[in-house]
Each structure stands twice: as structure tokens, then as C-alpha cells.
């Protein structure tokens, strides 16, 4: 039971973080807060991937003469790390576009509250 908990708690924590981000996106009325929620959501997925790359007694994926590369259990799995480099950049790009859109929205309505803007559109 203790083993089971120690083997899985990181998954549950990242899933909980994901739900916090989703809560921010769904419940908050302010558009900037929604964007913050999106960022939390993406970060939680990055954490999830990084946590699955872990191996006990392994080191970072940079070859070290004292640890032979023939035994793969000496190094962490480099693939999830690489994937997450891509995902981080995607997150940054999304954030940039989101802020550009927010500035365009603010220039038009002088407000960033979702409900007020919806009332103005009606």
C-alpha cells in the first residue's frame, strides 16, 4: 500500500494541478485569469511527462564516463524531456497570441470581464 502510494502520488498531484487550472479557466470571469488557468493546465501536463521520465538511481541524459551508456538504466528516459521542450515552446507561443488578443479586446471594449463584453456584444 505504501509502495503503491509512493509510486503514484506524483500522478495524482499533477492531475490535481490540472484540475486547478481547469477550474480557473471554467469559473473565472476575468480573461487574464482564464489565461493564467490555461498556463497552469499546460504546466501540469509538462510536470506529468517529466515525472514519467524518472528512473530510480539514474542521472540526467548527458553521457558521463563513469556511467556506461550500454546500461540504459543509468540514464533518465530522454524522450519525454524532448517532447516537453516542444510543449513548453507551444505554451509560450499560445501565451503570446493570447496576450495579443487580450490587448486587441481591451482596445475595443475597455474591459476584460467576460460578462461585460458579452453584454456589449448583444
Amino acid at each position, binding site marked *: 500500500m505504501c509502495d503503491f502510494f509512493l509510486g503514484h502520488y506524483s500522478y495524482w498531484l499533477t492531475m490535481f494541478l*490540472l484540475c486547478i487550472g*481547469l477550474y480557473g*479557466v471554467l469559473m473565472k470571469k476575468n*480573461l487574464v485569469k*482564464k*489565461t493564467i488557468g*490555461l498556463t497552469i*493546465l*499546460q504546466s501540469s*501536463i509538462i510536470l*506529468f*511527462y517529466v515525472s*514519467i521520465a524518472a528512473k530510480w538511481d539514474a542521472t540526467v541524459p548527458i553521457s558521463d564516463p563513469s556511467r556506461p551508456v550500454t546500461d540504459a538504466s543509468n540514464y533518465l528516459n530522454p*524522450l*519525454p524531456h524532448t*517532447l516537453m521542450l*516542444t*510543449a513548453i515552446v*507551444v505554451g509560450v*507561443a*499560445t501565451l503570446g*497570441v*493570447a496576450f495579443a*488578443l*487580450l490587448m*486587441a*479586446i481591451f482596445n*475595443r*471594449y475597455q474591459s476584460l470581464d467576460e460578462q461585460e*463584453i458579452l453584454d456589449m*456584444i448583444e
Partner: protein
Amino acid sequence: MTAYQLPVFIPFTYLAFAVLIPLVGLWKRKLSHPMAVTGSGLAAGLSLYGFAAYVNTGPIHHTFGGWQPPIGIEFVYDGLSAFFLLVINMVAFLVLLHSKPVAAREFRGKRMPFYSVTMLLMLGFNGIVSTGDLFNLYVFLEISSLSSYGLIAIGNRHAPFAAFRYLVLGTIGGSMYLLGLGFLYISTGTLNIIDMAAMLPHFAGKPPVLTGLILMTVGIGIKAALFPMHGWLPDAYTFASSTSSALIAPTGTKVGAYILIRVLLYLFGIESMDAVFKVSSVLGMLAGAGILYGSIMAIAQSELKRMLAYSSVSQIGYIIMGLSLANPAGFVGAVLHVLNHAAMKACLFLVAANLRFREGHSNIRLFNDTYRKKYPWTMACFTVAAVSMVGLPPMAGFFSKWYLVLGTIANANWVLLAVILMSSLLNAVYFFRVLEKVYMKNPDKESPAGEEAVVMNREVKPLMLAPVVILATGIIVIGIMNMSVVSYILKMFPG
């Protein structure tokens, strides 16, 4: 160029032009439209050539960097990819050909970034369709989503807000896809579609795989505007500029449907998809609800573009319903409907663009019988597309619905059969309402004296008319030639 290099050239033609347009745009801004047309025309030509090459030789695999698939990434050019590439590149070429006057009027100073971003959008779509690696698919998905947020934000005053809502939902969708992919990756240890498809039957019904399936379906469902997740679509298509909506409406949701077909039917397969509970029947119910909801909401709209947007929600329902039936007839209906709906929706949105260009609005309430005289060709094309949308026999729309009906009968799914028949009726209501305004004399309205005399032909220029006419002709031709298309699609049915 050999056949081995072909899968690279089709998507990356767009990248070359996306990079060239800003570089040349510094020197001459006016050149961006011809260059965009050249790029998409080149890609359309290449995909036509590739389609012929596929029919002759069979699937083409291009392994990047020379690394064999589970190690590296490959582009797979198989039947489904060839078909989808041909459809989306042709539609994009025609829409971009049409876009010059609209772009000059609606966003004159922004043409250079606009055309560059359209090239990036098409690069994303082509990459999604070509790739054989699930994470690579995510990267291209994000390219296309980011570009479509940008394109939708160009429009009227409310467009950035619609784009922001799309961004929030779309980012959630992309993240769900990525998370589901993470579950599948832990379970199998690979990211390649073919490799993973061979392994997944060993894990059928395991909780992580099932969770991955659900998360990926939800994530792509958001991008494809499947019924409960369609909230972003009507506003986005209505407020965006005519060119953006005409470009994204026929291609974007189709590519979402492509990913669903690829993931559900090719990656998971019918058995492991339904291992724990009937995922396919849940999808079928959602699709049926979406068809009815979209049709009913479309009747209530008075703005032509918003009506077409709701109609898109219902048409996506047809495609998803066809793939949820998971039998050959349903599959043929779904894939054939992708082709038909791309042609019909592009035609209808371009008609809306023409009307907005000349009249400044596309409000159905203001339509009257002078439009028949003013825009004879545009309205004739609208009629062809509308009749096809309703599903009357000589047009293309009839045949996809026919195969969907056959598929529901083969599964003995009478509820979905009733949904299809009822929605055809609803489609007829909202399209014939427009046709009645245009083609029937309105007896209640007193026409002012001399109005008939001054009505003259205000048809748009040939550059704007030609794509509409080509698409309308295409609808009729597909309808007549449907047997050869169907026999091509039938060969692709997995399993």
C-alpha cells in the same frame, strides 16, 4: 522529384511560401496574394500528382533523418492521407484565388502577415494529415490552431473576442490530446501510429488506455466542434472576415474529423475501442444530438454566415456518426461527406462573401427577388450547393447521406436513421427559406414603382465568381461520378 520525396514536398511547399512572403513583402507588399495563390496551387497540383502516384504504386513512407519509424518520425502517404490532402489543398487554392478583392477591402494593411499565416495554417493541416507520429501530429495541430486563432481575429469588431474564446477552448483541447497521448505512451512506450496500433490490442480495456482514448477523443472533439464542445464555432465563423471563414470552415473541422478517424479506427480499431463500454455508440448519440441541435439553431438565425456556421455543427455530426457506425457503409458515408461538405461549405461561404462584398451585409431578412437578377451566377451556385446540402439525388450531398442511411440500417440503429431523415427535412426548411426569398415574388410587399426597371446585373468580377462556379460544378460532378469515389474509399476501410 521521386515518389519517396513526395510526402515532404506537399506540406513543406507551404512552409517555403510562408517564409518567402514576408521576405518578398518587404520589397513589394502587393506580391503577397499572387505568391499565396502560387503556393497553394503548387501544393494542390502536387497532391493531385501524389494521388495518381498513390493509386499506381501504393502507400509511400518517408522516414525523416533516415531513422526507421519507432526511433524517428515518418510521414505516411496512404489512401486516407492522399484523399484528405487533395480535398483540403484544392479548397484552399480556390478560396485563396477568390480572396484578393475581399482582402484589399477588409484588411488592406495586413495582407502580408495574413497570407503568410494562411500558408502556416495549411502547413499545419497538411502536416496533420501526412504524419505518422502522434506527437508530431500534436505539433502540427498547434501550428494550425494558432494560425486559425490569428485568422479568426481578423474580422469585425467582435472578432478578437470570438478568437479568444476559441483559443481558450482550443488550448484545452490540445492539452487534453497531449495528456491522453501521455497515458498511451506510458502504456505502450512508443509514439508511432503503426507501431502503437500493433500493440494496443494487448492492452484493450486497461484503465490507462481507456483514459487516453477518452481524453484524446474529447480533445480532438473540441477542435472538430463535436456537439457539446462546439461553443466556439458559431461566433468564430460569423465574426471572422469572409476569407478566413471561407478558408477555415471547409478545412478546419474536416481535419479534426480526420484525426478522429485516424485515432479511433486506425489506431485503436473497432474492437479495442469498444472493449470496456461502447465508446462508438456514445459518439453516435452525441453526433445525432449535434445534427438535430445544429439544424434547429440554423433555422432560428437570420444572418447567413451564422446559419452556415450552425449548419457546420450539424454536418460535422454526420461525419462523426458515419465513423461511429464502424461498418463499411458508414465509413464511406463519413469520408464521402468530408469531400462533399468541403465543397458545399466552401461554395456557400464564398457566396456569402460575394454578397457581403457587393451589398455590405448577408442578412437573410433583407434578401429579395431582385437578387436573382442582380447576381444570376452567384445565386445559381448557391442553389446548387443548397440543394446538395438538403440531399436531393443528382447532387453530391445525396450520396453521402445514402451511404449513412445504409450504414444505420446495417447496424439496425433506427434512432440514428430517424435523425438523418429528420435533419434532411430541417435542412430543407432553412435553405429553401433563403431560396424562396430570392426566387419567389413576394406578394405582400408592395414593390415601389419602377423598381423592376432599375435592377441591373451587379454580378461580381470573374476572379471572385470563378471559384464559386468551379465548386458548384464540382458538386454536380462528384454526384455523377460517385461510384468511382466510393470504390476508392471502400479500399481504405481498416480491418
